[in-house]
């Protein structure tokens, strides 16, 4: 049992929570995640540990409401309990001084890339960050990202805020402008990560992505999270979640993420009707 210490809505569909989990808070490193299970009937879902506070013993998660479980969590408040919190899981990000690093976050992926950005800057890198979302109200962590970077560029698909366009357009401009880039981190929706990887490939810029495969146990026991990297099957939970973006089969990942579309819809629908009707 872990209790929720605080909760804040970052946008209409993105929620931030601090959860009491002292051992995880002390142990976690940038790039790792937890598995949460809200209640007895609940599903196990992976969420990145965005931040931790060793003294308070809390971890911070930021999640987007996309289905039943995230909606259920969004309905919880400070003081409520989450039945199971397992972690820290996955390999920590390999933090080094690469030189000039570009960190790119799309949508809720900004929450995932924030701890990595912070760690990279602390390691002495010059960090340029690009964060994007569909529209202004969906941009999250702008202040935090700005503080964690030497330079921050914000982009929106509809032009309602910052640069008008995709984060990949911004990166292309940086490259075209003659910026020397040593390393790219890109985390967000699969099409975004695929676009960035395709963009950097011809320039030979090492590009790390963090994959959001469907998981069950997250200890390497089930293979639900398998992805293909350089033609080899890897388990995202224990071999990742970060991989070389130039080697990832994004189409396979996108297909596997759709495996339960119908049932997820059914579950979400049932949840929404239930919470309105009862």
């Amino acid at each position: 049992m872990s209790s929720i210490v605080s909760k804040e809505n970052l946008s209409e569909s993105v929620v931030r929570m601090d959860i009491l989990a002292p051992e995880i808070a002390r142990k976690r490193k940038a790039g790792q995640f937890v598995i949460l299970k809200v209640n007895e009937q609940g599903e196990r879902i992976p969420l990145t540990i965005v931040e931790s506070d060793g003294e308070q013993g809390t971890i911070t998660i930021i999640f987007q409401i996309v289905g039943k479980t995230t909606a259920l969590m969004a309905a919880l408040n400070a003081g409520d309990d989450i039945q199971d919190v397992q972690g820290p899981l996955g390999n920590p990000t390999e933090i080094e001084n690469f030189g000039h690093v570009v960190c790119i976050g799309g949508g809720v992926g900004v929450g995932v890339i924030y701890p990595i950005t912070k760690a990279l800057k602390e390691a002495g890198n010059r960090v340029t960050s690009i964060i994007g979302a569909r529209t202004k109200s969906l941009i999250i962590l702008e202040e935090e990202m700005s503080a964690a970077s030497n330079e921050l560029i914000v982009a929106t698909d509809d032009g309602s805020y910052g640069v008008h366009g995709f984060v990949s357009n911004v990166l292309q401009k940086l490259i075209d402008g003659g910026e020397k880039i040593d390393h790219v981190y890109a985390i967000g929706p699969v099409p975004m990560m695929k676009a960035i990887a395709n963009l950097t490939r011809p320039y030979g810029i090492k590009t790390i992505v963090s994959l959001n495969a469907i998981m069950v146990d997250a200890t390497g026991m089930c293979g639900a999270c398998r992805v293909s990297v350089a033609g080899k099957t890897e388990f995202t939970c224990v071999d990742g979640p970060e991989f070389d973006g130039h080697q990832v089969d994004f189409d396979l990942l996108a297909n596997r993420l759709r495996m339960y579309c119908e049932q997820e819809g059914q579950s979400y629908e049932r949840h929404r009707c239930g919470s309105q009707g009862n």
Partner: protein
Amino acid sequence: MAEIATKPKKEKIPRQAMPEQDPGDRVKNFDEVPCGYPPETAILEAKRCIQCKKPGCVEGCPVDVRIPEFILQIAAGNFLGAARTLKETNCLPAVCGRVCPQEDQCEKTCILGKKGEPVAIGRLERFAADYERDRGAVTIPAVAAPNGKKVAVIGAGPSGLTIAGDLVKLGYDVTVFEALHKAGGVLIYGIPEFRLPKAIVEAEVDYLKQLGVKVVTNAVVGRLKTIDDLFAEGFDAVYVAVGAGAPVFMDIPGENMSGIYSANEYLTRSNLMKAYRFPEYDTPIVRGKNVAVIGGGNVAMDSVRTALRLGAENAYIIYRRSEVEMPARKEEVHHAKEEGVQFLLLTNPVEYLGDKDGWVTGVKCIRMELGEPDASGRRSPVPVPGSEFVIDVDTVVVAVGTMANPIVPSTTPGLETNRKGYIITKGESGETSRRGVYAGGDIVTGSATVILAMGAGRKAAQAIHQALSGVTTE
């Protein structure tokens, strides 16, 4: 033998069948298939035992259960006494009575089996344990006074639960760290409800908690803390019982397509996460119409029978050897056949075919024939050239084995493993290359059985007791 000659009439009682759910009904539910003996049948079966002076059955039992003694108690109507006798050597009789391969163990060496049918030892074991539990007659035995020594157990499968029970009774302060949110190991996430009701496993874990065992779930050792951290926290010994949980895939084209599961995933979704009760439970599972399960072991049988219960119209077992070589228990193969599973023997998958969305639509197979016996003594299958054919499927479950999970060994410097990643131990004590670290169960032997994992836990308990307290038990 003399005793057979003196009590000939006892052989006349036939081996008593156990009532079962009808195959037509049971494929529509996840309730247990065999229903257990009623008391009068148990007594009748127990009376078949001729109480051998040198009982063959005990020799066949990996943990030396005092079989004739508990059977005699059942014959005399002392069911609770029988349960207690069982528990002196086997702390999980309700589990073992259901899942042990008795036909290869006690029942194989039962003297009656030489001429006719062996005593149904497993069914009697199950009967006594169920009788005790169902009547709420489980008693908590006296536990030795705390001796101030702490032991950490990693993994709450049968091996870890057994050692925890043994050591807590000897006065140790025992904490079990379990990676998942529920204790039980394969008993809770792998073996289906229709073969081993989860309420039984939960009752056993509760019993250990009542004895004083601490169970910490959601604790992945190697990630949350390492074995070295545990010693630093003050534990005097560590027992590693993490099982052989990593799934093996065949590495053939198309194996990562949607609709293709490892047996571990398929069974974990269904059993641990209760996906068969979706949407009441949140975890989904694909309810395939045409399901192929690859493999011929217990895990394959559990998967294919799960597929039927999830509504499959065609459920296939695809196995590369013939039925004789199938490692699954005969009883499970028999149950699967009764339920309508189609067996494609001497057949091996070579490739998966899919649609434009990457969902599996077919499995391309090749026919096999048996060649010369291999190292394991089984005749090795060889493909018949040009014999490929395609079976239409929408779901596949790969059940071709498991291997060691490297999380604990890779985070424990100095812990030696063999080529396959299993932990190397010295003899039966479970001692490893690291001082104070013991190991047992599937992580040492590779996938084996519940009772062998339990036996390893029991032996390591004795070794740890000896090492920490200088006392030899037995």
